[in-house]
């Protein structure tokens, strides 16, 4: 098994450097060849079912015979089944966060944030968490395609080289990633042609921000935003927790500042927006305005601030001239005193306040001007010491590219890892233009929309199989190393291809590299010299590999200091800001990038598709988000089908009523409605139908199924994708279907004032009250009811508990994916989720407080509370769920007979039941499931299983275990070290580890010195439903809202109501 040998091999890159033949797919087709853990899935299935069958006698003693296939040469110090961690860098998006990859038997299984990394700092987003499922995606392209014909890599190269030799004008289109290696490889390759040009393009790149930076400071460089230094944050429709560069750092800093034990006063985040965005749900104050008028509000506040702070640049003053608070509030219907109060508050915190704008030029400009006025430059914003290099793109470039293509003078277009055929609005006319190129070559992981257009398709490796290096922030060098050799023989990373082609064309490659590995090493040598690191390169390289990159000590120090403020450039701001436009009429359709799927690249990843949206909790598709007031006017309710007309095109889509959304704004999530032939989209005909999780039946029981992947709004959006569009919305009178983990009809209930309060489950209090009384809102001490039983005494010296700070959690849902990947939690698909059968062990409950129109949102992470007096245990007839001696509520799957009584009796409803073979729905158990032409398309999926966690079969109850596998391993290890206890912080649950906001703390609650014990003792800590006497072991810290003083807000509400009533009287505007 020489090739698995290779894939197991290299602990150290040296070994890796010796060219390793790639593991071939046959390995996974032939069960005998599977390394033991890889087929654990199937065996679990057979065992659990088999055991049952044997029990009732109709399988007799038939038990599966298993093979052990040891390598012919087992590498040194390689132990089967033991974990190996690799430090690396995430290439999921341009942020390039630092990660560590857990591999078992050379299979990357879990990605985790790297604490030491300056980007990401230990957190990791949902997309990266799900990356392993992209790697093992059965629908990855496995062989190059030439005109639809599968060919070998060699043949592909030959065909391509013929074309290359004749080509004179070549275009290379790639995604944004701050990689010197990639950039120079492309450069060198294009240099071999008379007219070669590179275009970097990312559908959610902050192009507007770049433009505005150039406008204001004369350089296309994004500042590093240090929210930990901001006392006041003004969010002008920027969904920054979700869209900004370095968003994990923003989340971390915000939650860091919201740590009420560490800081005297939390920052105040004020959101100005029309939709209820993910960031908006975390705002302390929200000001509702049409999405198109966000910038105006920004300018108005700026002009007021300018007035207060005095000395400001004359050009700024003239630019702000048309935006007096009076005029703007007249146009927007926001009470002037609200804006005044806001401006005063911001000005008061000059130097400690920052404004973040929506990805449109005007919003960004407003934010930029505010930042200058508020002195954020040089304090909160770092544009000089270590600014962000994460994005270097511009939509002009892609526009130029399309123009080039259209002119027909382009010979070859290479599309490297991006999907413009889907990601560009129709108005850009990419498809039409691309058709005019002589040859389109797509380097892609899947046969996506662009690959459909391309005549030649080269399958690329997944980035977990690649070498790469990144510099996301100035001086912060990340090193990405492969954690598995490519799954398929006939694929090649785009960098490798570039270098190979360049060499064949007889031109020099950067660092004379033959492979990406060489190139990275070459680049790393530059890094060493650049950072003037003493010592041999080998040592430096080793060290960098171990730490996943390099940052000079000097920079680390400098980053903490104050950067220099950037001077204002001489550009004309008046023209850029433009005059105040008159108040628009009618409804505007605001497209937005949703948190989970974002630009849609992972649309074939069940973990992403079934990740509930932080705000709407919708899965498997998008919907028309309508505010309650508008819904009343239109007479639509959630799950009605509405008809939308915008930009001359129209579509029907299911409606979803979202409280706190502006009356005149309807939102639709971008990134859905892809048309590629993938099983989780409209279905891959090659795969069995039950693998198409995205299918919804028509709800009439007719059995006909239709794909539920939502509607593609990118199609009709502008180049600035989030620009609101004038739209007409009308009800069709028909019913639609949507799938959400929180039933939408309950929104109304939950938004009822007081309801939810008396339940005292998700508690939120106001800062003013909190300052007076730190226990405000939390339920009184656990009532001392009479109990016939004493308290249990646990043998183990340690007992595990958790503390969750709702003030830190922003609901980003990274933990949900992290948990699912770690614990082999199955995804169940549109219909099953719709029936309330989703399997997430960890869920984030979303609560609305206050008015339906002005709700405040609380995100509550809900996991198994591991109650001491667990009600689930008492009722299980067969002792399948019991209590361990270290106080865990343990679930023994193989003992479970599935009475589901435990789930009934769980007040937190955290237990999940396998209503069918959920994994089979993803083909996980069906390594042998053959298509007609005898292939096994699902084979690699089973490799994604975490062999440390039993895979549950049909009829078994499961739930959060506090990652007992991690607990047990830690206990064993410390036992071997002769320790009495596991040291604090040794055990990190998957959710805790992945949380960018550090909202979750896990540890020993018997030992009063641990971090978790300190939090549990915190006076604001409370336990959910404590009065039930179930003695939960998860402590919650309530959400504390630092809202502005009440008068202004109430005035605002009053004004808004008045404004609306005005609108009600003239419904002529409504379609």
């Amino acid at each position, binding site marked *: 098994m020489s090739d698995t040998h290779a894939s197991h091999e290299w602990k150290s890159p040296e070994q890796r450097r010796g060219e390793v033949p790639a593991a071939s797919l046959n390995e996974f087709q032939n069960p005998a060849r599977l390394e033991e853990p890889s087929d654990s899935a199937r065996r679990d299935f057979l065992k659990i079912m088999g055991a*049952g069958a044997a029990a009732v006698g109709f399988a007799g003693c038939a038990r599966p015979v298993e093979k052990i296939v040891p390598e012919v040469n087992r590498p040194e110090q390689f132990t089967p089944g033991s974990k190996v961690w690799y430090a690396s860098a995430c290439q999921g998006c341009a942020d390039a966060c630092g990660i560590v990859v857990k591999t078992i038997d050379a299979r990357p299984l879990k990605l985790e944030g790297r604490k030491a990394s300056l980007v990401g700092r230990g957190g990791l987003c949902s997309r990266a968490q799900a990356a392993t499922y992209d790697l093992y995606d059965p629908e990855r392209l496995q062989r190059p395609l030439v005109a639809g014909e599968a060919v070998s890599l060699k043949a592909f190269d030959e065909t391509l080289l013929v074309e290359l030799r004749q080509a004179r004008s070549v275009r290379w289109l790639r995604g944004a990633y701050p990689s010197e290696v990639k950039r120079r490889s492309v450069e060198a390759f294009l240099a071999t042609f008379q007219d070669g040009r590179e275009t970097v393009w990312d559908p959610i790149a902050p192009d507007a921000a770049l433009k505005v930076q150039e406008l204001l400071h004369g350089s296309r460089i994004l500042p590093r935003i240090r929210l930990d230094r901001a006392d006041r944050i003004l969010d002008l429709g920027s969904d920054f927790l979700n869209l900004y560069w370095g968003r994990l750092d923003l989340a971390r800093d915000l939650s860091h500042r919201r740590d009420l034990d560490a800081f005297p006063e939390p920052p105040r985040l004020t959101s100005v927006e029309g939709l209820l965005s993910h960031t908006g749900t975390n705002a302390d104050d929200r000001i509702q305005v049409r999405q198109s008028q966000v910038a105006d509000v920004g300018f108005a506040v700026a002009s007021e601030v300018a007035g207060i702070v005095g000395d400001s640049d004359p050009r700024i003053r003239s630019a702000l001239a048309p935006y007096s608070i009076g005029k703007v509030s007249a146009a927007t219907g926001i009470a002037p005193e609200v804006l005044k109060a806001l401006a005063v508050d911001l000005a008061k915190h000059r130097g400690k306040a920052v404004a973040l704008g929506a990805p449109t030029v005007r919003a960004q400009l407003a934010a930029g001007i505010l930042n200058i006025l508020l002195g954020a430059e040089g304090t909160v914003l770092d544009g000089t010491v270590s600014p962000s290099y994460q994005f270097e793109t511009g939509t002009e470039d892609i526009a130029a590219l399309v123009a080039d293509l259209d002119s027909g003078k382009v010979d070859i277009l290479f599309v490297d890892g991006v999907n413009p055929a889907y990601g560009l609005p129709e108005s850009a006319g990419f498809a039409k233009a691309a058709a005019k190129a002589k040859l389109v070559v797509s380097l892609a992981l899947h046969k996506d929309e662009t690959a459909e257009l391309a005549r030649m398709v080269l399958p690329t490796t997944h980035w977990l199989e690649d070498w790469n290096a990144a510099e996301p922030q100035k001086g912060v060098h990340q090193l990405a190393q492969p954690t598995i050799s490519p799954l398929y023989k006939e694929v090649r990373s785009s960098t490798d291809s570039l270098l190979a082609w360049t060499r064949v064309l007889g031109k020099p490659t950067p660092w004379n590299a033959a492979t990406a590995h060489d190139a990275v090493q070459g680049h790393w040598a530059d890094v060493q010299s650049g950072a003037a690191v003493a010592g041999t390169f080998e040592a430096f390289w080793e060290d960098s590999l171990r730490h996943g990159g390099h940052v000079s000590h000097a920079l680390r120090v400098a980053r903490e200091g104050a950067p220099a403020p950037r001077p204002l450039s001489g550009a004309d701001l008046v023209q850029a800001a433009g005059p105040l436009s008159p108040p628009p009429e009618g409804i505007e359709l605001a497209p937005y990038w949703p948190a989970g799927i974002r630009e849609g690249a992972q649309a074939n990843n069940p973990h992403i598709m079934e990740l509930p949206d932080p705000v709407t909790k919708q899965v498997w598709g998008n919907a028309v988000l309508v505010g309650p007031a508008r819904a009343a006017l239109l007479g639509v309710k959630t799950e009605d089908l509405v008809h939308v007309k915008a930009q001359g095109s129209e579509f029907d889509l299911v409606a979803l009523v979202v409280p706190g959304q502006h009356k005149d704004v309807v939102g639709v999530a971008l990134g859905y409605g892809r048309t590629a032939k993938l099983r989780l989209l409209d279905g891959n005909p090659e795969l069995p139908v039950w693998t198409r999780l995205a299918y919804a039946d028509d709800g009439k029981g007719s059995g006909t199924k239709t794909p539920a992947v939502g509607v593609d709004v990118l199609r009709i959006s502008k180049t600035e994708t989030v620009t609101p569009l004038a739209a007409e919305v009308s009800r069709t009178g028909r019913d639609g279907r949507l799938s959400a983990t*929180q039933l939408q009809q309950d929104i109304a209930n939950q938004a009822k004032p007081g309801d939810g309060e008396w*339940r005292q489950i998700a508690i939120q209090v106001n800062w003013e009250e909190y300052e007076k009384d730190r226990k405000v809102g939390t339920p009184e001490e656990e009532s001392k009811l009479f109990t016939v039983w004493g308290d249990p005494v646990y043998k183990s010296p340690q007992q595990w508990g958790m503390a969750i700070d709702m003030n830190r959690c922003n609901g980003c849902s990274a933990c949900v994916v992290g948990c699912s990947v770690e614990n082999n939690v199955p995804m169940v698909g549109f219909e099953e989720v719709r029936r309330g*059968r989703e399997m997430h062990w960890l869920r984030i409950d979303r609560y609305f407080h206050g008015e339906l129109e002005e709700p405040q949102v609380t995100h509550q992470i809900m996991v198994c509370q591991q109650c001491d007096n667990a*009600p689930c245990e*008492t009722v299980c007839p067969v002792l399948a769920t019991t209590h361990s001696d270290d106080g865990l509520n343990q679930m023994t799957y193989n003992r479970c007979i599935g009475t589901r009584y435990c789930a009934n009796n769980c007040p937190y409803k955290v237990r999940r039941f396998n209503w069918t073979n959920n994994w089979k729905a993803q083909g996980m158990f069906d390594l042998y499931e053959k298509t007609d032409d005898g292939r096994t398309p699902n084979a690699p999926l089973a490799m994604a299983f975490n062999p440390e966690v039993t895979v549950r079969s049909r009829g078994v109850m499961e739930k959060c275990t506090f990652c007992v596998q991690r607990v047990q391993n830690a206990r064993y290890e410390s036992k071997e070290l002769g320790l009495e206890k596991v040291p604090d912080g040794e055990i990190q649950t998957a959710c805790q580890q992945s949380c960018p906001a550090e909202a979750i703390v896990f540890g020993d609650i018997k030992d009063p010195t641990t971090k978790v014990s300190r939090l549990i003792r915190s006076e604001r800590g409370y336990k959910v439903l404590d009065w039930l006497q*179930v003695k939960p072991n998860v402590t919650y810290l309530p959400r504390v809202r630092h809202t502005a003083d009440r008068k202004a807000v109430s005035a605002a509400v009053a004004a808004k109501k008045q404004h609306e009533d005005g609108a009600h009287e003239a419904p002529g505007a409504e379609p």
Partner: protein
Amino acid sequence: MSTPETLRQRRPLVTGGKTVHDVSLDVCAPAERWGSRGYWLGFSTSQTALFIYLCAWLLVQTIGLKLVGINNRMDWGSFIVNFVFWVGIGHAGTLISAILFLFRQNWRTSINRAAEAMTVFAVSCAGVFPMLHTGRPWLAILFVFPYPNFRGPLWTNFRSPLEWDVFAVSTYATVSVLFWYMGMIPDLATLRDRAKHPIRKYLYGLFSMGWRGSMRHWVHYETAYMIFAALATPLVLSVHTIVSFDFAVSILPGWHTTIFPPYFVAGAIFSGFAMVVTLLVPARKLFHLEDYITIDHLEVMNKIILLTGSLVGFSYITEFFIAVYSGAPFEKFAFLNRAFGPFGWAYWIMMSCNLITPQFFWFKKIRRSIPLMFLLSIFVNIGMWFERYVIVVTLTRAFVMPQWGTYVMTFWDAVILLGSFGQFMTLFLLFCRVLPVCNMSEIKAFHPDTLRQIRESHDHE
């Protein structure tokens, strides 16, 4: 043994001037004659239903419970409803033969056999559900019973109400069968002695245990019968109490109530008697037993339905009042939600069927009108099914609002519910053909003529 006072009768229990010999003739007739057309019609219908029932289970068990309406918000559904419903039905028989025996209600003699049979069959129907509603029945059968095993040995959790159910229901089933069987021994002997065909003779002989009607045996027999009655009385009350613990012992608002045991028992007797009426009204026609199961018998049962019905209705109102009055917010919400929430319709069906229907029996005319009592008894059955439905769907709105869900029964839920009636009717109709439908020896013992003679034998000296 009974004393002469108890032998006085208000109305004759056997009408139509039937002699003791006629009793044997008439009661044995169904078992000795070929079934009428009406019988075969009913029998084939029930068997078809039974067949569909089995197929439905097979399918649900192969594909998984995803076929039925339950989900992670609502983990119990129609299966548990059916279970409680059938167990409830299974209360009348033992109650009639045990409690009424202790209370010297002699009118029970002509109906108790059929009622006990009904009990046994209802319990057998009920027994299917808790086993097959589990995710892995093949393991459930292995794991729920405590016996020495090779897992440690690992026993079961005797603190779990479900484990209590395992004991309660199986004990109840066993005792009902034993009681039923013992009551049948003398009648089986009668059938044996009347039998002509050697095989019939052999089989009836086998089960009649060589009963000869010896007085010395009768003494033991009567004692045993008395003891059985004494055992079955607390048992019949305990079974539904323990079933109600499945809900009452949990911590859910709307379930965690101390009123459940009495209210469940009352409900059980209520539904049980209704079912007896539903069965006997056609049965006495079909098998020409009008002279033994007289209109008087039916009227007495209607009176009991009226009583228990009012009890049930009273407890509905009580629990609602307490919940709303107690000031326990979750409890209050749960009950308001029952009445006015998304499943309000079921609540009001339950209320009208169980609270209002029986009140018609205040009127003697209705009590004694066959078609009306048949109709009303069916309404009661429907209402009692919905009572359990209402209780179970409380699950959809428990403590944590984001986990609120809904529950829609699927096609398979319905098939299995109806199919279980197929099982029940098949068994009952079989019983009517092979076993004595009425307790002959007791009817004879309480035959007006017998009673007269015994009285005279006392007045003699």
